[in-house]
């Protein structure tokens, strides 16, 4: 099973630096999420890793670059385009064409078609495929050589909820077999369930990398949600203990700086009644927004001036 090592990746389009001195490692047996705002260089990075784009740096798969691999689909499976096939070539023929280039047995074509749920459309022409079916065919192509490494750019695009669940289970299963899975996605809740590690980029630069758990703990803000009819008694005690209170809807208070046990102890010590005391854990989305807030290239007008912590999706 292969370790992916990307070192010093770089790429410029004219004067714009799309990827800048990007280095990271993807370990076997894990799913590594590749996160970044739109235009942050994720797709360019993946193309650089496979030698499709010309740029700086070097990516190795167990010490060998993609170009050095014999029959590369047996080592690295990639999905980089939404519909990377000719619209009138049958799905089975598309896979057969890729298979013959890598000396992959013909029966494997039928196996991967079945694996992605496209057996019934084997003779179908991709012109008539939905985006989700196209993604499934692209995933089938990536799996064709039973590779030890997968590089997937937004593989869940166009998949329905069942498809996303299927993909998550598939990628977890493949990682569980010891393969290296490197996957980009905009669906952060999905990535939170899928990824073991993350590589986060902004404006082509590495912002952070490491286990998802560490990223969320360090990048997000856990809060204690408190509802009490005795706020006049408890609030000064919380502030004195180093906490911060922020009023929320329906009389709920958001407490930061103290954990739930300390807030409960303070309530007991000051004889304050507590009607609700719960913890809202930091999320990957929140950690991501905190990490990339200054690096987001394309902002909408509504969210441009809104603090990351106040995004509705953080709940």
């Amino acid at each position: 099973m292969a370790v992916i090592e990307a070192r010093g990746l770089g790429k410029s389009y004219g004067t714009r630096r799309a990827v800048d001195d990007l280095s990271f490692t993807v370990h076997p047996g894990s799913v590594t999420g590749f996160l970044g705002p739109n235009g942050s260089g994720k797709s360019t990075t993946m193309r650089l890793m496979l030698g499709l784009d010309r740029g700086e740096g070097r990516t190795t798969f167990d010490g060998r670059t993609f170009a050095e691999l014999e029959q590369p689909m047996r080592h690295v499976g990639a999905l980089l385009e939404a519909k990377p096939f000719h619209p009138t070539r049958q799905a089975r023929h598309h896979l057969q064409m890729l298979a013959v280039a890598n000396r992959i047995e013909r029966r494997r074509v039928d196996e991967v078609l079945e694996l992605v749920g496209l057996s019934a459309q084997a003779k179908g022409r991709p012109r008539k495929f939905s985006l989700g079916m196209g993604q499934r065919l692209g995933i089938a192509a990536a799996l064709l050589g039973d590779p030890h490494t997968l590089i997937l750019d937004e593989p869940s695009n166009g998949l329905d909820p069942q498809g996303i669940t299927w993909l998550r289970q598939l990628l977890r299963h493949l990682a569980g077999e010891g393969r290296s899975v490197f996957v980009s996605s905009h669906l952060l809740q999905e990535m939170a369930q899928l990824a073991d590690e993350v590589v986060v980029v902004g404006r082509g630069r590495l912002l952070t990398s490491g286990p998802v758990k560490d990223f969320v703990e360090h990048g997000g803000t856990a809060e204690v949600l408190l509802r009490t009819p005795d706020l006049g008694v408890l609030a000064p005690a919380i502030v004195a203990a180093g906490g911060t209170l922020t009023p929320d809807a329906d009389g709920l208070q958001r407490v930061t700086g103290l954990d739930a046990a300390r807030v409960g102890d303070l309530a007991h010590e000051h004889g304050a009644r507590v009607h609700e005391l719960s913890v809202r854990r930091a999320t990957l989305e929140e950690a991501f927004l905190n990490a990339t807030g200054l690096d987001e290239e394309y902002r909408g007008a509504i969210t441009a001036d809104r603090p990351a912590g106040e995004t509705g999706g953080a709940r």
Partner: protein
Amino acid sequence: MTDALRYEITRLRTIRSTYWILGVAFGFQLLLTVLIAWNLPETGPLSGGDQTFAILVTVGATLGVAPLFIAYVIGLLGVFSMGHEYRHGMIRATLTALPSRLHVMLAKVLTTAVLSLVAALVCVGIALLSAVSFGVGLPSVGGLRDITVGTVLYTTLFSLSGLAFATLTRNQTAAVALLLLVPSLVEGLVKAVVLAIKASSGDPTSRGGIVDILKFLPYDAGGQMYTRVSLNDAFQVFGYKPFGAVGGGITMAVFVVVLLVLATAAFQRRDA
């Protein structure tokens, strides 16, 4: 390299355009040669022989009155060989299956050349069949050999230039336009301008000078491989004397090789 060839052969075999291009080329060649053979006189200089058979094979192109029809149709095979890669985003899938761009390019050159050559040979066979079917006098062995070699080589080089245009432009529509316009419109305009300059010079009938440029118009020069009597011969009054079949063929071949070398260099250096 073998893997790239297997990929290209499967690519050609599993796509509709291969079949409709060949179908159109063979179908129209049959239709047009039947029409011509049917209407040829039973006696006289056009009742048979080398010249008549050359007209049949080239559907009149040998007289310089029309372009070589089969080259324009079969040439699309060359354009589509690389054009489809960029038009449908296949290039990245191709290069993740075959990372050696040189092998990919060489396989495309080889398959385009062989398929175009075989298709053009079939078209010559269709013309022969029409001649036999309508009792047109058959050509001599030498005549048959010359027109076959000229037509087949021109068509093959034409297809390869289409492949080079598609690789250089990375745009199928632009490559088709170039393949249609460079031989017909661009070279025609160059001819018109050069001849106008020569005609307005002090000695318009002298040999050589600026008209020598015309000898190096690649498609026009290549056309000498199948042209027997051409309207271009009238330009000789301006001192223009084209290369013969061999010189013209070499001129076109050099042009196509240069195009392919440039295309391969660009393919190696550019982003996919």
